[in-house]
């Protein structure tokens, strides 16, 4: 049986092999070769794609290089979603590498948030951490941290430093023993075909009788269609970090070990493969 700490490492170091191709309507001075990169599942696109921008800038005139944005099969990719979530949601049952188109013009303002600098990513990241802590501890842990502690969480993510990040993040994963878990579990459930971006509700990790709630309990409450029926036909896959955790897994354990660095469980509901 893997040690729980190994799970934390496996989640942090997950990578997705990706092929970046310049979109055909971008104006280049000579042919642009595709660029290959291993993307960290737990990070954000603008944080890890400087090399992509530099690669394509080499064959373009500076005037033609606007804000970079990414698209997969016609869908603009929301940079404020973690990379692993985007992959699980849109491309998890396709062959690798993940093929993404790169754009430098016609920024889709109705669909995507702007990302003019890394401090915007930092603000988003810290905002998620704050919200997660509001759910878990009424914000008590984040408020007790100093500004340098907040910085350490961000720098740990930005520089891919597992130990630096978790030295601080472990405080956000603590809870009073007598409670048996967090106040509420920070989670969001995503489904591509839905007309709303995600489902987020208040959900306690422990029932009033003291029994720990499971992933199955969460789904029953918030997305009952994802629970396989008795006839055995599985309509959906419930995916976190590219795996389908067993529905019997305690949700408190999932929150402590399979959350993204922003402290949220980002869960994808995707159609089960029909083969």
């Amino acid at each position, binding site marked *: 049986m893997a040690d729980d700490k190994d799970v934390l490492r496996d989640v942090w170091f997950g990578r997705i092999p990706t092929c970046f191709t310049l979109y055909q309507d971008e104006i280049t001075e000579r042919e642009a070769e595709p660029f290959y990169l291993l993307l960290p599942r737990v990070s954000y696109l603008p944080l890890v794609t400087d090399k992509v921008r530099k690669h394509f800038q080499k064959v373009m005139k500076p005037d033609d290089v*606007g*804000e970079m944005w990414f698209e997969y099969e016609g869908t603009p990719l*929301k940079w*404020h979603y973690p990379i692993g979530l985007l992959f699980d949601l849109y491309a998890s049952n396709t062959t690798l590498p993940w093929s993404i188109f790169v754009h*430098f*013009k*016609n*920024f889709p*303002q*109705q*669909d*995507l*948030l*702007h990302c*003019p*600098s890394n*401090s*915007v990513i930092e*603000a*988003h990241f810290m*905002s998620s951490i*704050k*919200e997660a802590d*509001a*759910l878990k501890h009424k*914000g008590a842990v984040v408020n007790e941290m100093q500004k340098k502690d907040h910085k350490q969480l961000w720098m740990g993510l930005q520089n891919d430093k597992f130990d630096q990040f978790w030295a601080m993040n472990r405080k956000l994963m603590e809870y009073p023993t007598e409670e048996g878990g967090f106040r509420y579990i*920070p989670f969001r459930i995503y489904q591509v075909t839905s*007309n*709303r*971006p*995600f489902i*987020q*509700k*208040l959900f306690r990790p422990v029932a009033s009788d003291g029994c720990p709630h499971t992933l199955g309990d969460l789904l029953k409450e918030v997305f009952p269609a994802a629970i396989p029926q008795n006839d055995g036909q599985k309509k959906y896959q419930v995916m976190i970090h590219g795996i389908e955790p067993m529905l019997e897994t305690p949700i408190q354990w999932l929150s402590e070990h399979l959350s993204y660095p922003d402290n949220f469980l980002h869960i994808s509901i995707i159609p089960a493969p029909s083969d």
Partner: protein
Amino acid sequence: MRCTWMRKVSGSAGSADGYMKKTVLGRGKINTPSLDGSCKSEEDVCALGKETQEGAPDGSEWEALDAEWSAAIRYEYHVLYSSSYQTPVLYFRASALDGRPLSLEEMWDNVHPSYRRRLLHSPWDTITQQEHPCLGQPFFVLHPCRTWDFMSPILEAAQNECRKLNYIVSWLSVVGPMVGLEIPLSYATVASKPERTAAR
């Protein structure tokens, strides 16, 4: 009292999810859009804050300013409830009449100077661009985590004076003006009449 707020329900009928929406036409300043649609960097936005400290214009500069500030802007305000913070949150966006969304820089231009300085210096009170949780589109949001700091004195005062309080109206009257949303006094006179019964 004529009310121009609309209730919008998202999701299936009978769902508790939804938000209040109000659209306002106002006057303000918008830039000629840059050709590639890209936006300015954060340094430029901070520079705007510094500009407001240089003092108000006077004399003949008012006429030129008036022309500059005559563009028609369509503001959309949504009040949502954050279950994470257990507080209302104000989402808003603005567009030119041709539908072009205003940039963060243009939004800052249209925030009253006295609020602009305060908002820029306090990171947790600041305006950021966020995804609307029901519509999935980019909106600007006033960060909700300091709401309790300014609402609790208001709640306490109302309690001490045995005055009925409409939380949403009071909250909106504080945050709304920061982002150009006017709250008519009539909202307040309807919402918080003094109670004649004794305090509990």
